[in-house]
C-alpha cells in the first residue's frame, strides 16, 4: 500500500467520512484512518447480541443530517433511507400521559386534554421555534466569520449575518438574544401552564448537555434538536433504515467510489509535524502515512492533547484546549427484547409507542435528575428518551422481537470523582431497567441482552472525550465563531496543513454532516481546487 496521500482524515465518524468524500470527489487521493475495526464513530449499527439483531449503538434517530449533503453525496444510491416515525409520549407517574400525535387536530386535542390554553399556546410556541430554526438553518453550511478579522470574506460574512438578523425584525431580534441565553424551563413557562405539557417539551433542552432544565443556555439546546427536518417537515425525526450505521455506510460507499481508501483497526498515535507543517500520521501499530493535509474528526482535546506533540503547539492554545467544555452527561442502554413491552399508561397498540417515550412529569423532577449528576452520581430517577425502532424498521430484529434504544440523562463521566467500576456500570443499568419496569411491568422478563454504555464506554469506543455526545457542550461560549475556540472556527488547526472536521467544530454535534462538509470547503479553497461542497439551500 502506498504511504503518500493528498489528504489523511483521522477518524471515520460521519463527519470524517463526509469530509473525505468531498475531498475525494474533488479528485484528491484520500486515506481514512479509523482506530476501531468498524467505521461510523457515534453513527454506527453493530450486531452485538446475535447476527440478525442490529443496535444503533450510539446515536439512534436522524433529523439534523443536512439534505444538501445527502443529495450531493448521493447517499440514496448507497442504500440510505430515512423513515420518519410518529409522535412521542411523555408518561407521568400517576398513570396519565401526554402524546404528541402526527395528526395536527389529534395533537391539539391531546394537549387540550391537559390544558385547553396550552393547546392554543402550542401554535405560538411552534411558530417561535420555527422562526428561530429558520434563522439558524441558513448558517449551518457556512463557515462562521471571524468577528475580529478584517479580511474581506469575514467582513462580508459578518454583514450577511447582520443583514439576515435585521430581516427578522425588531421583536424577533430581542427574542433571539433571549433564546440563546435562557433556560428551557423559563422559556417554556412563557408559553405553557400545565406541568406535563412543559415536561414533554423540556427534554430536548438537556439531551447531551451537562446542564439542567433550569440552567441558562438550555433553550438553545432545544433549538439544536429542532432545527433539522425529515423531508422538509421541520423538527421531525426519523430512523435510518438498518440503524444509524446506514448513514456512515452510505457515506463510505460514496467515499470509496470516488477512490478513497480506509484503514481500520489501529488509531493515530501522533500527527507528524515538520517545520510547523502537518506532514502525516503515525498509528498505534507503527504504520506511517504521509500527506500535506491532515484532517482530524476527533474531539478537540483528543486531537491536540492526545495525538500531538505539545512542543508542536503554542502553550496558550493548549491551555484553551484544556478549558474546552466537554463534560459527559449521557448514557445509553441498547436492549434486545423477546417481545413488545406494554406500558400500562398507553392504550394498547398506541401509535405513540412508535416514537420517543419519556418517563417524566415535571421540569422539577428533571432538575432533580441533574442534581445527582452534580453530586457525581448517575440520576437515581433518570430522564430517558426511549424508542423501539424495530416497530418501524423491520430490518433491525427478527419478526416479533424488538430492539429498544434507551438514552439516559444524567450520567457523570466519573462517579464521585473516581473512574467507573464494572459493578457501577451494572448498577447504573439496573437503575434504568427498574425505572422502565415501573411503567411497563414484565419488561425485565423480555430482556434477552443489554449493552450498557456510560461516558466511560463512549470515550473508550468512540473517543468522545469524557463521553460528551456532541464533542463539546453546545453553549453560546462554544458556538458559531467560538466553536471550538475563538480564532479557530474556520476549521483550520494551529499548524499549517492541519484541519478539524468533527462535531467539536461549528455548527456542533449531532448527525448533521455540516462540520465535515464545511471543513472540506475550506480545505479545497486553500488548495485552490474546485469546490465540491454544495451551498446550503435556503428555506424560501
Amino acid at each position, binding site marked *: 500500500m502506498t504511504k503518500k496521500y493528498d489528504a489523511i482524515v483521522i477518524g471515520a465518524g460521519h463527519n470524517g467520512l463526509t469530509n473525505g468524500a468531498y475531498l475525494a470527489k474533488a479528485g484528491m487521493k484520500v486515506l481514512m484512518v479509523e482506530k476501531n475495526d468498524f467505521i461510523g464513530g457515534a453513527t454506527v449499527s453493530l450486531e452485538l447480541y446475535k447476527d440478525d439483531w442490529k443496535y444503533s449503538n450510539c446515536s439512534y434517530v436522524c433529523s439534523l443530517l443536512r439534505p444538501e449533503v445527502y443529495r450531493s453525496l448521493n447517499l440514496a444510491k448507497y442504500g440510505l433511507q430515512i423513515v420518519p416515525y410518529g409522535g412521542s409520549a411523555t408518561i407521568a407517574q400517576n398513570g396519565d400521559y401526554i402524546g404528541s400525535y402526527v395528526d395536527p*387536530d389529534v395533537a*391539539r386535542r391531546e394537549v387540550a386534554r391537559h390544558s*385547553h390554553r396550552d393547546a392554543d399556546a402550542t*401554535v405560538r410556541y411552534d*411558530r417561535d421555534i420555527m422562526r428561530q430554526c429558520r434563522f439558524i438553518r441558513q448558517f449551518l453550511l457556512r463557515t462562521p466569520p471571524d468577528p475580529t478579522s478584517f479580511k474581506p470574506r469575514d467582513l462580508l460574512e459578518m454583514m450577511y449575518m447582520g443583514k439576515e438578523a435585521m430581516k427578522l425584525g425588531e421583536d424577533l431580534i430581542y427574542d433571539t438574544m433571549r433564546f440563546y441565553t435562557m433556560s428551557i424551563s423559563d422559556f417554556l413557562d412563557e408559553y405553557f401552564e400545565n406541568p406535563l405539557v412543559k415536561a414533554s417539551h423540556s427534554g430536548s433542552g438537556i439531551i447531551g448537555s451537562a446542564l439542567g432544565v433550569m440552567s441558562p443556555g438550555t433553550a438553545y439546546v432545544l433549538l439544536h434538536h429542532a432545527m433539522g427536518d425529515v423531508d422538509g417537515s421541520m423538527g421531525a425525526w426519523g430512523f435510518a433504515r438498518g440503524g444509524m450505521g446506514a448513514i456512515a455506510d452510505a457515506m463510505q460507499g460514496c467515499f470509496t467510489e470516488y477512490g478513497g481508501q480506509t484503514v481500520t483497526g489501529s488509531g493515530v498515535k501522533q500527527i507528524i509535524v515538520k517545520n510547523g507543517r502537518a506532514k502525516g500520521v503515525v498509528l498505534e501499530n507503527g504504520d506511517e502515512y504521509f500527506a500535506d493535509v491532515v484532517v482530524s474528526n476527533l474531539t478537540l482535546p483528543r486531537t491536540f492533547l492526545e495525538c500531538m506533540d505539545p512542543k508542536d503547539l503554542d502553550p496558550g492554545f493548549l491551555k484553551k484546549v484544556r478549558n474546552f467544555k466537554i463534560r459527559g452527561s449521557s448514557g445509553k442502554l441498547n436492549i434486545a427484547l423477546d417481545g413488545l413491552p406494554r406500558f400500562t399508561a398507553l*392504550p394498547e397498540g398506541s401509535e405513540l409507542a412508535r416514537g420517543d417515550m419519556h418517563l417524566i412529569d415535571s421540569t422539577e423532577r428533571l432538575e432533580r435528575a441533574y442534581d445527582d449528576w452534580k453530586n457525581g452520581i448517575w440520576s437515581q430517577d433518570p430522564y430517558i428518551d426511549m424508542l423501539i425502532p424495530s416497530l418501524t424498521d423491520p430490518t433491525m430484529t427478527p419478526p416479533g422481537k424488538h430492539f429498544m434504544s434507551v438514552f439516559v440523562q444524567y450520567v457523570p463521566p466519573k462517579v464521585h470523582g473516581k473512574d467507573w467500576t464494572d459493578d457501577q456500570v451494572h448498577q447504573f443499568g439496573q437503575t434504568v431497567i427498574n425505572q422502565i419496569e415501573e411503567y411497563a411491568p414484565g419488561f425485565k422478563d423480555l430482556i434477552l441482552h443489554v449493552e450498557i454504555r456510560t461516558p466511560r464506554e463512549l470515550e473508550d469506543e468512540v473517543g468522545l472525550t469524557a463521553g460528551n455526545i456532541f464533542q463539546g457542550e453546545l453553549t453560546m461560549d462554544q458556538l458559531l465563531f467560538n466553536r471550538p475556540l475563538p480564532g479557530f472556527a474556520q476549521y483550520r488547526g494551529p499548524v499549517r496543513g492541519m484541519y478539524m472536521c468533527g462535531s467539536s467544530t461549528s455548527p456542533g454535534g449531532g448527525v448533521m454532516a455540516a462540520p465535515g462538509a464545511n471543513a472540506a470547503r475550506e480545505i479545497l479553497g486553500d488548495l485552490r481546487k474546485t469546490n465540491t461542497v454544495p451551498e446550503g439551500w435556503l428555506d424560501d
Partner: protein
Amino acid sequence: MRTVNFSQHDHYRNAVFPSPFHARQKEHNQLREWSRWSDYLSVPAYWCADMEYFAGRNACGVFDITPMVKHLVTGPDALPYLNRLMTRDVSKIKPGRVGYSVWCNEQGRVIDDGTIFHLEEGVYRICSQEHQIDWFMTNTLGFDVNIVEDTHDVAALAVQGPTSCAILKDMGLQGIEDLTPFGLTYFDFEGTQLMVSRTGYTGDLGYELWIGPDHAERLWDRLFDAGKHRGIKAMGSDALELLRIEAGFILAGVDFLPAMEAVRPSHTRSPFELGLGWLVHFDKGVFNGRRALQEEKEKGSRFHLVKLDIDGNKPANQSFVFTKDEKFAGTVTSAMWSPSAKASIALASLEAPHGKSDSRLELQGHSPLQQ
C-alpha cells in the same frame, strides 16, 4: 350533549368527529366525499359544487357551520374587555346585534377575524376560524370576565339565499321577516331555544341558525321540509367558497396568515392591509395594536388587498401579479370564475403602492401564500 369530549383518553382513535348534522349530511352526500374542518367531518360538495352555488344564489343553500370556533364572554367587564381585545368599538354592538370584527397583536397584525354576537345584555359570543382561548385568556388580566369555549355545545347551520326568509317563515319562525341585517333573535323550537341571526358569508339574504346539538337533526328535517318547494339544497364548502369570494369576504389562512401561525412575520397583515380599516376605531381608547395601527395609518401600509377583475375566462388561482412593466406587485390569494358576474375575479394582496387606485396589472404563474 357534547360532540367532542377533550377529556376522553381515546379521542385519538378518530382524527375527526361527525358533526351533529352528520346523519343528514350523509343522506344528502351523493359524492360520498368528506373533508375536514377543525374537529369535524365536513362536506366539500354533496352532488355538484356549481349547482350548490346556484342554490345559494338563486334559492336556498344550507351549510353546516358547527365546526366554527365559538367562545362565550360574560361577566361585569365583558364589554371593556372586548373593547380592549377588538379593534372596533364593541359598545356600538347593542344587545340583539351582531358585528364583524378583527383582533390584532401589539404589532397591529391580525390574529383572526370573526363575528361578535351580543346575545343579551353583557353576554357575547365570538365566532372565529382559529382557536383563540390562549389569546383571549391572556387578555383577561385586569378584567372581571369569564370566557369559555363552547364550540362543541352549539350546532349551527347557515341558511343562505333569496328564499331563505320564506322558508324559515314556513318553518314557523313567526316575524323572521322583521329581523334586520346583523340582527339576532330567539324562537322556541320544539321546546328548546333556537337562536337565529341574519348573518352569513355569502353577501346575500341569509340567516344562521344556532341550537343545542341534540336538536340538530330535527332542525335540519324541519328546515328541509319547509324548503321543499323553495329550492332548498344542502351546500358544501366548495360552493360556499365561491359565494364568499364573490361577496369579497376574506378567509383566515387563505387571504391572510393569522399572526399566531405566521413563521414569516412579513406574511402577516394589518386590518388596513386587508381592506378592513373601517373596523379600526381609534376614538374608543386603548386596544391591542392601537399604537402600531395609528403609526401605520400615518405612514401608510405595506400591502393593499384588492379585488381583481381579470380579462378572459380562466380563474386566476395562485397567480403572481405584475405591473405592465413586469415589476412584481403581489399575489392572488383567492380566485374564481364568477357565474353571477360572468367574470374571472380574484382577491389579491399587492405590495404598496400598487393597488391604491384602479390600474391595469398582469398575472403570471402560481404562488401559494405560505405560512
